[in-house]
């Protein structure tokens, strides 16, 4: 009986989680092609300072949580070992979303590019629930948006 309830929960969490993941990826791809005109690079010295008309710190912040299904798979993998593939997708989504938000911030000042892009990441629910929970992560992407003089 417990097993049936458990499987219903896992199955439900899986279906909902898959749906959210798919629609999120669609949204990310749409936004990415819309933001293609603003490149973000990790290099610090790609632009000549004389050409910079305006600069601004831009950042994109994403908090994302795993679901029950991902948690179960991850906790089992904790015992058996191996690549935690459900969380790979989760973090990939979060990173790309963070970059997109950063780019949206940059596009508000009509920036030409973002230089010196960096990532920070932290796990949010580890303190609150003693390391348990479905896994909640915060990812911040930040960089310097620059507006260049047109030649």
């Amino acid at each position, binding site marked *: *009986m*417990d*097993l*049936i309830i*458990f499987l219903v929960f*896992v199955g439900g969490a*899986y279906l909902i989680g*898959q749906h959210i993941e798919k629609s999120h990826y669609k949204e990310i*791809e749409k936004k*990415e*092609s819309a933001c*293609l*005109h603003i*490149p973000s690079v990790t290099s610090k010295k790609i632009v000549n300072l004389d050409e910079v008309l305006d600069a601004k710190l831009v950042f994109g912040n994403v908090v994302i949580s795993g679901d029950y*299904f*991902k948690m*179960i*798979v991850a*906790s*089992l*993998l*904790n*015992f*058996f070992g191996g*690549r935690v*593939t*459900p969380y*790979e*997708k989760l973090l*990939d989504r979060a990173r790309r979303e963070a970059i997109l938000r950063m780019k949206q911030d940059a596009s508000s000042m009509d920036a030409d*590019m973002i230089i010196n892009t960096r990532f920070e990441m932290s796990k949010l629910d580890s303190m609150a629930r003693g390391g348990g929970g479905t896994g909640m992560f915060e990812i911040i992407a930040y960089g310097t948006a620059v507006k260049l003089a047109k030649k």
Partner: protein
Amino acid sequence: MKFVAREIKTNVNVSQEHPLKVFFKLLASLGVISVVVYILLVAVTEIAIQYIPQKINHALSSLFVNQFPFSVGSDETSQKVQGLLDDVSRKLDLPHADSFKVSIIDMDDKNAFIFPGGNIFITTALLNEFNSENELTMVLAHEVGHYMNNDHLRALGRAAVLGGIVAVLGVGGAGEVGQFITGFVNIFDLKYSRDQEERADKFAVDILNQYYGHASGAVSALQLIENKEVEKWTLNGFLSTHPVVVERVRYLQDLIRKRNFIIKGPSELKPLPFVLNLYEEESSEEIVELEAEVSE
């Protein structure tokens, strides 16, 4: 260098392995581990119960009885039922006869169970259902049958080993793995406990036949718990521990036919050795109160 915007076509950061495939692979691995654990459980308990002395059996019993807030076998009905059980075990010369202590407990759930050491509990709800002494004897003998087959020790031993494994996994941070293994083992266990029920039924009907000279009341005693089974059926259907009553009844009827036990009519059944006033008492008090009011 001229910047050319390119769309991201591939993603090397995520594996394309289907999440359900990962999940079922893990589940299958757990299944294999559970089978190993289960075999271990069966082996340990089946071997160990052959060497458990009666003294330890009794020591275990005191552990369990102390967990209950009620006194064991103190009231009048309990003593009457005890008298019946004593008479059965004396006449049939059952081993460990003095180990069995019957107690009635006030519960709405129709049930009877036996603890390590031989403490038998019958709930008032079940007691109210009995129509004859034969049925009561059948239920008592069924519980004694569990004891004779050492089913309580099996249950205890398995709980101990399984609990130990789960606890160790929990300490190692793999609590979920332990829960999975418990779930799997419980499913494997269903067949095992069904076999135990049937063996106890078999023992009980033999006792009934030897004591009364016929096996009437055996089948109807099983049917008394049918309501409970129906409720169970809606809840966990095929996962029921007790084989569905219909199945058990069929098994018992086959057995009675095979052994040529005599079945007699309801008039041949012995009346209960006690009168149950569990509900009547209350109503008679109410009547007295009503009468008092009328006379005023």
